[in-house]
Structures are given as structure tokens and as C-alpha cells.
């Protein structure tokens, strides 16, 4: 049953992505930046998905600390890992975009840099998990670190914004219509790329969750072998 839903969702994601890519290919080029601007249709939703993942990770970590139910711990890892993959996609597309617009691969601008620091923080989370063997301790320590990382991210953003302001301001939701409404819909609409990527993230998270189940089975088998 669960697998069928998963396959269905996966198929829906693929269909949705095909539709969106078709739609986006049909859009005219943006006036000042040309074709490369279209990377925004994936660059931005990837960042938003990653941010959402870190929020879910925070909630799951707090819930784990309150309930001590390992389901939440599994959710926290799964979602963090998927979020890291998406954030990496965001970083790479951002870097390629920067090469065209600014002429450098890495511009050290506010958002790119905070995303990188954020990536390093959560990569640290995964490394911490790998280093701790005892499952309960692993889950508790990781949850605490996840909360720390989540608190840190806005402060990092604030500090880097103080440091330099070079990135073009946010182009959505502003009235100067450089970003047409049907373009906005292609990202944020109910069938837009954001929805597609979020569904993709969900599918990946669910798969990762079942792996975490196996991991816990493995842990308990190890412990049993150790006890015998």
C-alpha cells in the first residue's frame, strides 16, 4: 500500500516536472539576462524546499526530545539529508548563474554564502550522527545540534547581510513587473516547480525513512549479537 502511494507520487512528480519544463521552455527570454535567467525556476524552489526541510527537521528534533519516539528522529535525519541534497542543487545552480551574471563562479554574496554555511552546519549534523554509535545518544545529541543549527541560520544570514549587499534584491511579489505573473505561477502555482520539487522531496524522504527503519533493525541486531 505504502509502496503504491509512493510510486504514484513519483509518477506524478515526473509528469509535473515534464509539464513545467515544457511550459518554461515556451516562455520568452528575460530582457536583461537572457536565457540563463530561466534557471531561477529551479534555483529558487530548491532553496525554499531546503529551508522547509530544515524547519521540518527542527520540529521533528523537538518532538523527539519531548516524546522520545524514534520515528521523529528518523524523520529528522531523512529530511535533513534530502534538504542537504536540494541545498547543494541550489548552490550549484546559483554558482552557474553567478558565472554568467557576475562573471565569477562564486560571488560571496549574502544568500549564497549563508546557504553554504547552512550546508556546512547540516553536513556537520550528519557527520555527528555517523560518529555516535549508541542509538539513543545519537538521536538526542543530533536533535540538540539540529536545534542549535536552526537557531544559528538566521543569525548567520543577518551577519552576512551586514557584511555585504551585492545580490540583486528579491524580484518576486514586487510591483515593478519585471517578473510576469505567469512566470510566478510557473514556480509558486499549484502545478509549479516548487510543488513538483516539494513532492519529490517528500518521496525521497519517505524512501529514506524506510532505510532508517532498516538501520534501526541493524543497530538492534548488532546490539543483540554483542550481548550474546
Amino acid at each position, binding site marked *: 500500500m505504502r509502496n503504491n502511494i509512493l510510486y504514484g507520487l513519483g509518477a506524478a512528480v515526473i509528469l509535473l516536472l515534464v509539464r513545467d519544463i515544457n511550459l518554461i521552455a515556451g516562455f520568452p527570454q528575460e530582457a536583461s539576462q537572457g536565457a540563463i535567467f530561466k534557471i531561477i525556476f529551479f534555483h529558487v524552489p530548491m532553496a525554499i524546499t531546503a529551508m522547509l526541510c530544515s524547519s521540518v527537521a527542527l520540529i521533528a528534533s523537538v518532538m523527539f526530545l519531548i516524546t522520545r519516539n524514534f520515528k521523529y528522529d528518523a524523520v529528522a535525519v531523512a529530511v535533513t539529508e534530502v534538504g542537504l541534497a536540494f541545498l547543494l542543487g541550489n548552490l550549484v545552480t546559483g554558482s552557474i548563474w553567478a558565472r554568467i551574471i557576475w562573471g565569477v563562479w562564486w560571488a560571496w554574496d549574502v544568500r549564497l554564502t549563508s546557504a553554504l554555511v547552512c550546508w556546512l552546519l547540516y553536513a556537520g549534523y550528519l*557527520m555527528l550522527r555517523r560518529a555516535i554509535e549508541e542509538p539513543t545518544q545519537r538521536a538526542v545529541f543530533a536533535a540538540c545540534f539540529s536545534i542549535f543549527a536552526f537557531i544559528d541560520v538566521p543569525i548567520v544570514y543577518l551577519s552576512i547581510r551586514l557584511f555585504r549587499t551585492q545580490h540583486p534584491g528579491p524580484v518576486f511579489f514586487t510591483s515593478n513587473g519585471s517578473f510576469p505573473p505567469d512566470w510566478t505561477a510557473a514556480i509558486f502555482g499549484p502545478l509549479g516547480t516548487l510543488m513538483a520539487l516539494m513532492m519529490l522531496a517528500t518521496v525521497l524522504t519517505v524512501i529514506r525513512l524506510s532505510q532508517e527503519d532498516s538501520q534501526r533493525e541493524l543497530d538492534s541486531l548488532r546490539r543483540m549479537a554483542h550481548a550474546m
Partner: protein
Amino acid sequence: MGFFRQALVITVKDLRAEIRTKEAINASFAFALVILVLFSFAFDPLEDTTRDISGGLLWIVFAFAGTLILNRSFARELPNDCLDALIAAPISGAALFLGKSVANYLLLLAVELVSLPVFGIFYNVRWTTQFWQLMLVLVLGTWGLTLIGTFCSALTVNIRLREVMLPMLTYPALVPVLMGSMQLTMTLMAGKPIGPDMVPWLKLLAGFDLVFTAASLVLVEIVLVG
């Protein structure tokens, strides 16, 4: 016994044990010295541009040297299972953590204060012109550094590869502190006082210290007892 008196007892214990052996503090200072010398090869120490970035160098040195002290902090409790006895004692995890943080803080401040004149001589920087403002930055920045470091030291205490994991966890989290301290120190090293344009950085440092002091005092009990 009050919360702060308990923390003080822990601080005194840690400082006394450290001063007897001087393991961490010697290693930390020697390390700071070595990095200072190495940096002089990377950047010509007599050029003006080097003086401009010297504030940044200084904080990198402090962050590196600090890790050595922080690594020892909870590791000191390991050999004889002392952490068990401390957790069994009727003091809160927060007091234990605060006491250890303060001990690390004082040790790191000592290393920093000794490194500063050495740095001034090597790089021909007149660091005393804005002495008290520099001390303010040092006090705020170092507290942020020790706080995050001590918390991560508690997280990594009984894992393999502790020495590698601690910097991996702390440095990304420390970006705001290091950036703020570097900016402020660079201005002060250039002989300028902290003007209104630099005040946001001070606020950022103070805010970071406050937020993470609160967060770690709340979370540390969970980390220590599970």
C-alpha cells in the same frame, strides 16, 4: 547552594586542574604562535594591506587555538569517569556547563591576551590605541566562541575522532561571531574607534552571546543526562 556558587566551584576545579598540568594552555599558546608565524609567510607582514586584514588573522588564530582548549574541557572528565560523579551530584547540568564554559573562557582569554603583544610586534600593529574597545570586542567575541565550543565539546565527548569533529561542528556555527569580531577588530587595529556604522556588529555579537547562552543552558541538561 546557589546556582552561581555551584558553577564557580566547577570553574575553580577546572582552572586548578588545568594550571597544574598546563596541557591545554601551553599547547594552545604554542599553536597560536606557530600560526602567527605561518601567516607572515602567506601575507607580507610589513605591507599596509596586511595590517588591514590583521584583525581577521587574529581571530582565525584565536579560533584555532581555542579548539585545543575546548577539546580538553570535557575530555578531562573522561579518564576516571568523573562526569558520572558530577552528574550524580545535586547540581544542575546548566550550572555544570556554565562553570566549564567560564573556565574555558578565562583560559582562552589568557591565551589571547598573551598572543596580542606578540602579534603587535610581529606585524607591526599598534593594537593599544583603542585598548578598551578592543577588550570589549575580545570579551564578547570570546564568550560566543567558548560557549558554542563548550557545548559541542559536550556533544562530542565520547565519540571517536573527537578532535576532528569539534572544529567541523563549531566553525560553521561560529560564522557570525568570527565575522563580527573580525570586522570590529580590523577597525580598531587601524586606530579608529567603533563608529555608528560598526555598532550593528556589536549588537550582533551581544545578541549571539545572549541567544546561545540561553539555548545551551536549556539544552545541556538533555545532553548530559539523555
